[in-house]
């Protein structure tokens, strides 16, 4: 068990290292040099350029720059943004909680709704209710997150102007306003993810429901509800959990879109703004945070697998 864990951790770190190289390379490839942003394009002399380049360490060879960048990043120092003049780390500290809150709430609600709905769909498989559910799912898969967001805005501006008008407020300032400002973004990101969780639960359950032990349980008179939720769902859980881990990537993409639609000051919006202004340290920092959290979650799900499924444990 320990050896398996160590192997997974090792694999994770090699992927993380490769990701950091890629993110750094991307940062150096972004058109527009950091120095020209700082010095300004016109009227700057060669000496000024050279001085700024030397100050930032940009005159060093790329591998040296990479090691320095990685060392600083590991200590939580992403440098100073040439656009805003603020410390990137301080900005991240403001943005990350917003995105994490949205992600965790989305994970909670989509699982709490999607799991039972999927079980229900599987139990009623190939009956009228199931046909209805499946056609709805097909529609759900064909509606992009930002279209859901616009629909939520359209409906919200008519039915709940109170929710529509409130702009993002921090919990520390006004908890009531904070909750109201998060309702529509949360609804937008949760709807598609719930549909996917439900779909996956349905197909995982259908596979288990045909197993002999379900027939045995039924024959020995175990209550149906107990069979569905205890016997079958417990056995269908490993693929579902893997899928929820996979969905995390989908959710990160959704976060970027939702934060943009509802003007939430989260990580995704920070990244898009940084891309628009060519804020090089900010782009690399936000990208790195996104990619690293994605790799972490997937590794976590991988490690969770043997916990959920005893057959996967090495003896």
């Amino acid at each position, binding site marked *: 068990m320990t050896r398996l864990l160590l192997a997974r951790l090792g694999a994770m770190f090699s992927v993380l290292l*490769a*990701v950091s190289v890629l993110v750094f390379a991307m940062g150096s490839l972004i058109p527009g040099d950091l120095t020209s942003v700082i010095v300004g394009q016109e009227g700057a002399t060669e000496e000024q350029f050279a001085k700024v380049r030397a100050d930032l360490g940009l005159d060093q060879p790329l591998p040296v720059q990479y090691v320095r960048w990685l060392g600083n990043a590991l200590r939580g120092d992403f440098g100073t943004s040439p656009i805003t003049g603020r410390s990137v780390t301080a900005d991240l500290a403001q943005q990350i909680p917003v995105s994490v809150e949205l992600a965790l709430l989305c994970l909670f609600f989509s699982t709490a709704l999607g799991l039972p709905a999927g079980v229900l769909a599987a139990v009623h498989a190939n009956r009228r209710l199931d046909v209805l559910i499946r056609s709805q799912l097909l529609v759900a898969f064909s509606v*992009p*997150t*930002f279209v859901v967001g616009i629909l939520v805005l359209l409906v919200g501006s008519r039915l709940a102007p109170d929710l529509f008008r409130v702009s993002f407020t921090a919990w520390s300032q006004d908890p009531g306003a904070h909750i109201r400002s998060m309702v529509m973004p949360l609804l937008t990101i949760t709807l598609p993810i719930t549909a996917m969780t439900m779909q996956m639960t349905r197909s*995982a359950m259908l596979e288990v429901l045909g197993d002999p032990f379900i027939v045995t349980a039924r024959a020995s008179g175990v209550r149906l509800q107990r069979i569905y939720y205890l016997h079958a769902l417990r056995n269908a859980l490993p693929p579902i959990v893997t899928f929820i881990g996979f969905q995390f990537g989908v959710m990160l993409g959704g976060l970027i879109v939702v934060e943009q639609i509802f003007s939430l000051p989260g990580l995704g919006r920070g990244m898009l703004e940084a891309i*628009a202004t060519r804020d090089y340290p900010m782009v690399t920092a936000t990208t790195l945070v996104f990619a690293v959290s994605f790799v972490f979650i997937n590794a976590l799900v991988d490690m969770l697998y043997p916990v959920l499924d005893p057959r996967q444990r090495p003896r």
Partner: protein
Amino acid sequence: MTSDQATDLPAPAATAPARLRREGFVFELLRHRGGVFGVAVLALFVFLALAGRLVMPYDSNVGELASTLSGPTWRHLFGTDELGRDTFSRVIDGSRIAVVVAFLSVAVAAVAGVAIGVVGGYFGGKIDTVLNRSQDVLFAFPTLLLAIIIVAVLGPGLVNAVLAIAIVYTPRFARIARASALGVKSSEYLDAARLAGVTTPAILVRHMLPNVMPSVIVLAALSMSTAQLAYASLSFLGLGVSPPQADWGSMLSKARDFITIAPWLTVAPMVALVALMLAFNVLGDAIRDVLDPRHSSGARPEAAL
């Protein structure tokens, strides 16, 4: 076995893609309930993409400043935008980009992915390891995030967005092509072909490729909707086409700003986008059902962004 006999073996190339070559494929697809719907909607959009300029009621890029943000009227069925441009015409014009992006990005990804996968799978060893590892790193990024950062590096624009989506989708094709290539690598007919002196490129193209095709076609069909989705999202985030060109994603992004005073602006692009996505989804499922009957339709791991 003489070399004549060996090169005379038509069987391997013909067996695997048999379902593809049979004329029945199109008929089977049209017999499939979802298939008809998908083909019909897609045909409509392809028609609009090709002949849109002829059928659209107004020039999509010229606005009437006298009627900006007008509501739905008989003159402008879906209203006009903030520059007085006809929304309906712009949606028709936008279908060109939507259709081209979906087909082009998936096609580029499929060609690149198949090349990488088949070469890696056939040769094995170091080449395979290097190709495999570099693909793994791409898998470490969420789909939309990877597309966004590639566009950030290349700069926004239609071509770069297509390229970004193609890069994002390449590893999936490489993986599936490699798996099929490994499956036939040690088969007897490949040994026979090698013994008969068939050159390596010929083996790859004439004997490996046909075996890889069915699964690649299924994946390509299923990828159309998500590629379309990825592009629409990029465009919505302002990383797609440049302004005057009509495009559903950027139209919706603009309409979002006027959502309280001109909510009708969202209707036409939204309906068009969802209809095309639905058509791609249904058609993808239908093609999979027809080409790969063993697969029970149900689980769709790759759903949306």
